[in-house]
């Protein structure tokens, strides 16, 4: 009797394990789980845990290194498998134009009321139809105050003084790299007319000789280590340097800055849009906002949160105190559309110049 049972039990076990394997292959298609793609370290590490604890919705984090990567992946794969993406505004705009992101139902995101009024009138998406701002800020100069005077103009970076030659870096992401030249020349950041591009190209090729490197990821470390004295930087990222060394300071040159906005979008392919909206709503909550800002040291467009910030934080990182009315006067980067081809060629020209 036991002997006749044994094969059957083996068979049952086999089918069970096969089913398990198939389930594994089929992937995690749980109804109540969302997948979020964000830059590594761009949200507090326990945010997802807290979200799950509060809402009962499981959330998983996937990391991307750059806007470009996640964009390429979403375009090639149609965004399948992802529910929420963190991308900068021009990329959100392009994803929207490609029809890959869903409209956000404001009724399901009541915390949208926490946003500054300025944050609901952003040029790329007025009224926040498909994207919610997560963090915003400026691009300026981050420098070692113990080694140089405060820079005042973008030209201080593009044509550095002799003792700064070989000790400055610029952002390698093309839009911000070109942005420095556009601002220095008093042009629009989104101007892709041939004349403007040529002027910017000449200026940047000249500037290239005096650069230590193009760097959009470790520039603040170069300041800390002393390899660089001045770098083109996003304000929030400069704060990481300031945290390491109080002699590091941030300034916006007189010609101005761009207003960059990192946004949250929900993919059209998402099968859990309601859960995704709950997540967006959760991130926009006051408590979460406070805690995001004080952990990642970026300004958030979350009025409720910013007003509740510890003043000591703003004292240590003065750029955290910038007001939305100041920010909104800067131009936002937009998707370049038809101008992109010519723009890309100009960037290649600059990168390839010897």
């Amino acid at each position, binding site marked *: 009797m036991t002997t006749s049972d044994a094969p059957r039990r083996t068979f049952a076990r086999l089918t069970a394990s096969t089913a398990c394997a198939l389930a594994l292959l089929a992937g995690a298609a749980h109804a109540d789980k969302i997948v979020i793609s964000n830059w590594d370290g761009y949200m507090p590490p326990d945010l997802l845990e807290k979200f799950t604890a509060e809402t009962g919705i499981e959330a998983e984090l996937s990391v991307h290194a*750059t806007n*470009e*990567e996640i*964009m*390429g992946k979403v*375009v090639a794969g149609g965004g399948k498998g992802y529910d929420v993406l963190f991308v900068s505004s021009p990329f959100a705009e*392009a994803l929207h*134009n*490609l029809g890959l992101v869903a409209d956000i139902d404001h009724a399901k995101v009541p915390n949208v009321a926490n946003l500054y009024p300025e944050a609901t009138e952003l040029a790329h998406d007025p009224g926040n139809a498909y994207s919610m701002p997560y963090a915003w800020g400026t691009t300026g100069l981050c420098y070692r105050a113990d080694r140089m005077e405060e820079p005042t103009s973008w030209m201080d970076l593009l044509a550095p003084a002799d003792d700064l030659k*070989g000790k400055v*870096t610029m952002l*390698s*992401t*093309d839009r911000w790299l070109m942005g420095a030249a556009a601002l220095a020349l008093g042009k629009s950041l989104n101007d892709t007319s041939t004349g403007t591009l040529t002027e910017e190209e000449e200026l940047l090729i000249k500037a*290239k000789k005096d*650069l*230590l*490197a*193009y*760097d959009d990821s470790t520039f603040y470390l170069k300041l800390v*280590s*002393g*390899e660089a004295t001045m770098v083109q930087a996003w304000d929030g990222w400069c704060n990481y340097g300031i945290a390491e060394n109080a002699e590091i300071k941030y300034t916006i040159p007189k010609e101005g800055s761009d207003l960059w906005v990192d946004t949250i979008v929900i993919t059209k392919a998402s099968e859990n849009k309601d859960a995704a909206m709950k997540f967006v709503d959760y991130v926009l909550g006051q408590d979460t906002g406070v805690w995001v800002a004080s952990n990642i040291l970026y300004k958030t467009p979350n009025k409720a949160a910013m007003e509740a910030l510890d003043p000591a934080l703003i004292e240590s990182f003065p750029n955290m105190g910038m007001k939305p009315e100041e920010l909104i006067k800067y131009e936002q980067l937009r*998707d370049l*559309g*038809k101008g*992109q*081809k010519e*723009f*890309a*060629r100009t*960037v*290649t*020209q600059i*990168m*390839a110049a*010897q």
Partner: protein
Amino acid sequence: MRNTLKSVILLAPGLGWLALFMVIPCALIFTYAFFERGVYGGIDYIFTFENFQRAADPLYLGIFLRSAKIAGLATLFAILLAYPAAYAITRAPQRYQTALLIFVILPFWSNYLIRTYAWIVMLNREGLINQSLIGLGVTSEPLPLLYNNFAVIVGLVYNYTPFVVLAIYSSLNRINRETIEASEDLGAPGFTTFRRVILPQTITGVAAGGVFVFVLSIGNFITPDLLGGGRLQMVGNLIYDQFLSARDWPFGAALSMFLIAVMMALLFTQAVLTNRAAGEGRAS
């Protein structure tokens, strides 16, 4: 009949795999090269040859040439470094040879990014090399070793030389020792023996290793990105940028096809030369 069957059993899984997971997907992408970039980065299905015309622009050709130069230099240095090392290992006592080889490959079980990053640590202004040079009084100011072609080549050589050592070692190891002795016996000085007897017999190993370095270098984008300070673009970066930054898949596809064509030509030249060398070897 039976040979056909055997061939099918051996070849079918591999070729099937490559057909399914390489040929078909790539064919798909390569058709994009004949269409236009959509305004927001998709594909507009309008037939055009424009992408190929653009690829022939001196700007892009210049990048191709420069990449070839950098990859070529990396290949050359890798071989110059690897050959004597491989030769020394074949001359070491038999019982140590395996250990010596394992130590060549061991560092490469860490991670490419980490190894490349290690060179940032080594080469920067405050890095070990500059510190040592200043300490030794060779220079008073730190030398700009990082974020230039030099650093890129060092990075490529560092990452790929071990494979060249393996390739050359295995070809050296197959040489009939007596041919070396024969040459010495015939009165050839050491270097002549090397040039006329040892090198020709190992040229296939050198070629195999060299092509490996060249091919992986020219398409590389991480090393130029991290060690070149983004300053110089190799064709790998260029293609990467077209697909990701510029979101111009049609142009990226056209550039890729061009790169693949160039490398295919190169590999065939190598194959022909190798076969000829092997043919001569057999005839004599």
